[in-house]
């Protein structure tokens, strides 16, 4: 019997015919993920090394949220046990009861609403999982054949496929299939490329990603002149994503705002305070087909919808889970999955090739050390970025090591900040004026 069926039976019974009155449920919610994952890696140019062997994993686990008859709540992680008999589950129910706590704002299970149609499954991925996974071995072989001779290559390909089940006491009963394909590679752990979506990457995407990485790797072999105080800083798309993930997204978490632990206050949102330059908007969009952050329904049973966090530079709403929405006095919003599902838009975005031509004196930041150590609430950063790329007169001319000092909120509000579109990434290049000096 499937875990979701066990749980549904157990919780339904506890709601309507409990074994003990103390164990009577008023409401409940279940989310169960069944997944199969196949992966293969490269370590130091070796495919499938002892540290990155071809791997298969299977799991069936989930989370429950319970509202007891006295209004108390419980939440627990659950998995299918070998001895999943009636007595076992009753014992679990008693333990969940013991772990109950008072949280009136959380004790709400949304009533079902129509779900949007969003494609989150690529059937080809299921074929890989149920077949021999040859595509993984072929891709790794191709990478190793095409790589330059000098660097040590690291990499990984992972495919995942499975079912997501969501059940609530208010009548929601949804099961759908979802898939995932994630691949990345790097040379000497200094430069690399990655792909992560709910579908397989297309040959032309793989080719373009490889060519871009090779061009940047070649540029890193040349020593370039140092930066000066007027040098423009350009964050590569992955860096834009990392900076937004460190400084911006955490401050839009509803619970942080409500608990006054974020950079913005509730009043800032209610007054639609201008915090970014008016050209910027920030959106959570789980409706884009086959994107990693796309979904049909949240684990709390809220249908996917598009939520604008910042419109024309002004705060609109934090992202709100059910509990936070009750406290905020609004409906629950879309939720990001990590950074997936978040989109930064700029009204004057141009293609990267065009933006690059316009850079007289710049430095392209591919990665920084220690970003996760920076203070998210203040937005201030002090970072070292060895292995950055110098840009002079519209051309990438070689490697340079720099240190960055500034404040990301100030960067997002500055009229000098621009973005450039990357055809391979969901986040743009971010062109900023900030403190930069040679390392």
């Amino acid at each position, binding site marked *: 019997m499937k875990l979701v069926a066990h749980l549904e039976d157990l919780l339904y019974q506890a709601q309507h015919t409990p074994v003990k009155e103390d164990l009577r449920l008023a409401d409940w919610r279940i989310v169960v993920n069944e997944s199969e994952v196949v992966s293969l890696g490269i*370590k*130091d140019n070796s*495919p*499938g*090394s*002892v*540290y990155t*062997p*071809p*791997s*298969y*994993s299977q*799991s*069936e*686990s989930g989370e429950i949220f319970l509202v007891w008859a006295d209004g108390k709540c*419980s*939440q*627990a*992680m*659950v*998995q*299918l*046990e*070998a001895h999943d008999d009636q007595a076992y589950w009753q014992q679990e129910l008693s*333990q969940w009861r*013991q*772990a*109950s*706590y*008072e*949280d009136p704002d959380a004790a709400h299970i949304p009533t079902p609403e129509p779900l949007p149609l969003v494609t989150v499954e690529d059937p080809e991925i299921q074929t890989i999982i149920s077949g*021999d996974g040859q595509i993984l*071995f072929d891709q*790794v072989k191709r990478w190793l054949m095409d790589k330059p001779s000098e660097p040590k290559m690291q990499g990984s390909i992972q495919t995942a496929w499975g079912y997501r089940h969501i059940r609530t006491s208010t009548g929601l009963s949804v099961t759908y299939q979802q898939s995932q394909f994630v691949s990345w590679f790097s040379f*000497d*752990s*200094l430069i690399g490329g990655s792909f992560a979506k709910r579908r397989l990457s297309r040959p032309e995407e793989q080719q373009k990603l490889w060519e871009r990485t090779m061009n940047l790797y070649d540029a890193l072999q040349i020593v370039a002149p140092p930066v000066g*105080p007027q040098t423009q800083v350009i964050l590569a798309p992955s860096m834009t994503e990392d900076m937004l993930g460190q400084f911006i997204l955490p401050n839009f978490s509803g*619970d942080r705002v409500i*608990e*006054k*632990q974020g950079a913005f206050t509730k009043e800032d949102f209610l007054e639609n305070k201008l915090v970014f330059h008016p050209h910027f908007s920030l959106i959570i969009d789980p409706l884009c087909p086959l994107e990693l952050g796309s979904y049909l329904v949240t684990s709390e049973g809220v249908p996917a919808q598009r939520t604008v966090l910042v419109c024309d530079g002004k705060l609109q709403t934090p992202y709100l889970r059910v509990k936070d929405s009750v406290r905020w006095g609004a409906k629950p919003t879309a939720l990001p999955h990590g950074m997936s599902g978040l989109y930064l838009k700029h009204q004057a975005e141009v293609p990267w090739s065009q933006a690059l031509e316009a850079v007289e004196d710049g430095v392209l930041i591919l990665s920084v*050390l*220690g*970003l*996760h*150590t*920076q*203070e998210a*609430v*203040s937005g*201030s950063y*002090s*970072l*070292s970025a*060895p292995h950055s790329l110098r840009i002079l007169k519209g051309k990438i001319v070689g490697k340079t090591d720099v*240190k960055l*000092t500034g404040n990301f909120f100030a960067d997002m509000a500055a009229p000098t900040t621009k973005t450039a579109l990357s055809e391979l990434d969901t986040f743009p290049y971010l062109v900023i004026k900030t*403190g930069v*000096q040679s390392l």
Partner: protein
Amino acid sequence: MEQKDIKALVLSVLGETRGFDGYVIVRAQSRREWSMRISNGRFERVSTGADSGFGVQAFTKDGASGFATSDVLSEGAGQKLVQKAIQLARRNEAIGTKLNRRIWEAPEVQAEEKNPAKKSFGEIPLVELEEMAMTLHSRLREVSPEVVWQTSYNQVEEVWCIGRTDGTNVSFVIPRAVVMHQGTVRDQGKAQSTLIHRSGMDASVLFEELEDHVLERKALDRASFAKAVCGAPQLPSGHYPLIIDYGLAKGLAHEAFGHAVESDHMNESVLGEGGKIRKGLRVARPGVNIIDGPLVGDWAYQPYSANGLLRQTVTIVRDGVLEAGLGDVFSAEEAGMPATGAGRAESYGNVPLPRMSNIRLSVDRMLSLTPLEHLMDEVKAVRETLLQHGELIEGEKNLLLLGYRGGQVNPKTGDFVFQCDGIIDVADPELPIYQPSIFSGKILSALEAIRGGIGEGCYDAIGTCGKGGQSVASSGGSHRYLLMDADQQVSLGGQHA
């Protein structure tokens, strides 16, 4: 699931591999976790969880490997995984993977370690734990209502059993518990947060804290410090004589040094040459030592590796000279070091990698310091100690870096960065406070700059090692403070000079 039950399951699954001409490692793990978070006087979350399963690593007779995992801890599931792992190993052999037969050379080990916890996992009911955590949280809010406080308590028990084709069967229990206070303060339109913890093996940490309130005092002091940091100026960037606290020293030893001597990193490590550890290399001044090994009762305690070898305590640097690395059975020999049982994994679902447990840095030249109850009193005592020993350099800033917010290192280039909570100039009798700024440079230069320690050893700085995308408990420390000379290859960020 109990230790004996898991052991029986592993034996039974291994019994099914008798006809296979290769080698199999079976890892089984059963994990229980209770956690709670209180924010502004209300429970935000109380959660219970359990996770258990098998990880099977199979090797063909020539040494190609395959790995299969499942979160069902049953005999049937284990047997299926063995077949799947063997199938993957054979596929791997066909693509010309680098073969590795080191596991055949590993010594056979039989061990059943007792759970070192003083209080068993469920001995204190969850309701009582909630009450204790709420009491601690409420006290903080009463004393310091202007700070936004969040208190968390987390208790974990992991039961592991590792069985191998050669008859090895090792089982042990890892208990861990931590109570944390996070405070967010605002001043002059700026916000800062501070996080402070107390760790141990079990619910004893809550009982101890309720009795002595050590964490509470630290949290209040750190919140006051964070408030002062809000309005503090930035330092000009540059190269300064530094005093770092033991949390930062743990970060330095772990990120900058420990990772660089792990046996799987020797091809990409500044401390490797031709894939082998640069044994005999002078990396620090005489008197500087770095040791790694598990400590009973510590956050990162693990008595055996995830490959079933005894975890040894290793002197990585002795008297300033690189002596040994952290080797697991698969890559130690190739890296020119002995296998010391360094393989650790987040869970049954991950392939073990060589990594640290508790790493500690000590210096023979130690200035004594009596630990004081309050932070700024201790900082004053540090200044007085330095003055007394003629260690403060006239006319120069001597900067004490407080708190460890994490760091990152590129082991290939030797570049490192660390972040602290804030900085105090102990050369100035006013003890002015500055904004935190990135502490960065080259790892060998940073080690070479260490000139002494202040105070006795403190090894309870905790963290999570993220190597290979896994999350594994790590810990360590040094003297209460470490003294470092100014070095042109080690700098503090901040404003342009």
